[in-house]
């Protein structure tokens, strides 16, 4: 990860009020691993340093949202504190190795009805695609969209396809979705414009657990091909 410090004028342009109860700090307009990494590290930093001023803070694909209660925290005070943190932030964070999760997937067939379309667009055979898709661990980029919904990436340029023209209804929990240089895992039935390429028995959300999420942003996921779940 390339570490660099932001200039003050850049910091101002990256801090955006979102409604009247949140501030967004954006690390890029395009999804890159660097922007994603910076967002995750900066979210950790904000939780550590600004905990008493904010109601919560989470990282998105390329940004951090900080929520505040205007009755307790003045917008300008919070903005100044964030800018202070930004002025020395270099995105670097040395820590323990990130947990690696192996997740079993059945690709194609009735479990991944869009796999054929994806392979045709990429001009790859099923086997070639699956081999590429499982060749290395992916970064967990963000949670969002629906409970436990995990964005993973980024795939190489040669594995990028656009979303589908038509939205599919009732895509089941445990679906492996593919589009826009990313793979996602659903934990609840959703409607989606992404390609459904496979199925897993892994669910990244358990509302009855003290820790409802199994894989968090910053961790790694390595897909393993299986015939049965």
């Amino acid at each position, binding site marked *: 990860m390339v570490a660099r410090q932001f200039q003050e004028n850049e910091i101002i342009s990256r801090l*955006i*009020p*979102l*409604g*009247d*109860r*949140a501030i*967004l700090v*954006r690390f890029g*307009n*395009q*999804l890159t691993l660097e922007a994603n990494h910076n967002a995750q590290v900066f979210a950790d930093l904000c939780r550590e340093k600004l905990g008493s001023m904010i*109601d*919560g803070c*989470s990282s*998105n*694909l*390329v*940004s951090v*949202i900080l*929520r505040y209660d*205007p*009755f307790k925290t003045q*917008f300008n005070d919070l903005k100044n504190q964030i800018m202070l943190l930004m002025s020395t932030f270099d995105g670097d964070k040395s820590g323990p190795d990130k947990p690696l999760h192996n997740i079993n997937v059945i690709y194609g067939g009735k479990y991944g009805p869009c796999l054929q379309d994806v392979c045709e667009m990429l001009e790859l055979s099923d086997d070639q695609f699956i081999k590429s898709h499982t060749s290395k661990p992916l970064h967990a980029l*963000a*949670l*969002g*969209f*629906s*409970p*436990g*919904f995990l*964005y993973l990436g980024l795939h190489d340029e040669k594995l990028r396809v656009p979303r589908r023209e038509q939205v599919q209804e009732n895509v089941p929990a445990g679906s492996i979705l593919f589009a*826009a240089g990313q793979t996602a895992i659903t934990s*609840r039935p959703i409607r989606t414009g992404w390609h459904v390429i496979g199925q897993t028995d892994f669910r990244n*959300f358990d*509302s*009855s657990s003290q820790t*409802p*999420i199994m894989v968090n942003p910053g961790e790694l996921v390595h897909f393993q091909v299986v015939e049965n779940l």
Partner: protein
Amino acid sequence: MSGSITIQRVSPNSTIQDAGRPEGLLYGLSASGPMDRTAFNKTAAALDGQGSQSVIEFSMLGIDFVYSGPPTECAVDGGEFQIKQNNDEKQWPALLLLTDGDKVSITTGRAGNYGYLRFAQSLNIPIVMGSKSTNLAAGVGGFEGRALKANDQITFGDGVQLRTNSVGSQTKSAAPSSNIVRVLPGLHADLLGPAMWTRLFEAPFKISNSIDRMGFRLSDPLARFDISQHKNIVSDAVVLGDIQLLGDGTPVILMRDHQPIGGYPRIATIIDADLDYVAQLRPNREISFISTTLEKAHKAMVNG
């Protein structure tokens, strides 16, 4: 001995709500909570803050239920519904003394989409991730993760203290004097450009028939938004009150069960102080927007 209610009839998409589940936002789950906090808080005040933390939020067609148990109180508020207790018409809003076998019937009235029914005793509903609120889209919390339906029975626990950190509980929200709702620029206002921003204000919209806890779709006879050039934006954080533009340009006001992250552009965000008013606007009502500043939005939270 504690009481219970049995629901005889209930409007679709009526749910159990409390102040909300802010920590859910960390897990891809919106915070939920009451669509109209002002009315929600008024039912708490009517019980001197001694009532249940969680309430029944019923939608436009109301609710009929029978109470069973020792004498107790319940407070109802929100919109303008009609209410009967054992065939006696009551004034709206109401504070009712209930005795064993009483039947309460709340039916649609002149105005409003959401009403609140708060009992003196707590509701025996499991706490999921810190809250009893139902998130219908996720199937989490509340009564088995779903909307209430006829024959559901809800039992009561003890009377409890209201917690003080309820979502926006200090918001003193007065309804705007007209149907003009104040907005701040949304996350993608710059990207969409000044011409589209101006068009937001040039004529009223109407509330469509497609309204629920996730969002209120607006109808726009002018079809004024063309977002065909903005279909590949990076998904980013969504906040309550965002006005997002769907692929065909249809504006949607995102409400309590919104997705925490979304990929459609957001042109504007409705200020906190005007959200409760919007939640009660029925289909076919006109709605217009006016631009304001963050400073004024924060003042409006205090002064209305």
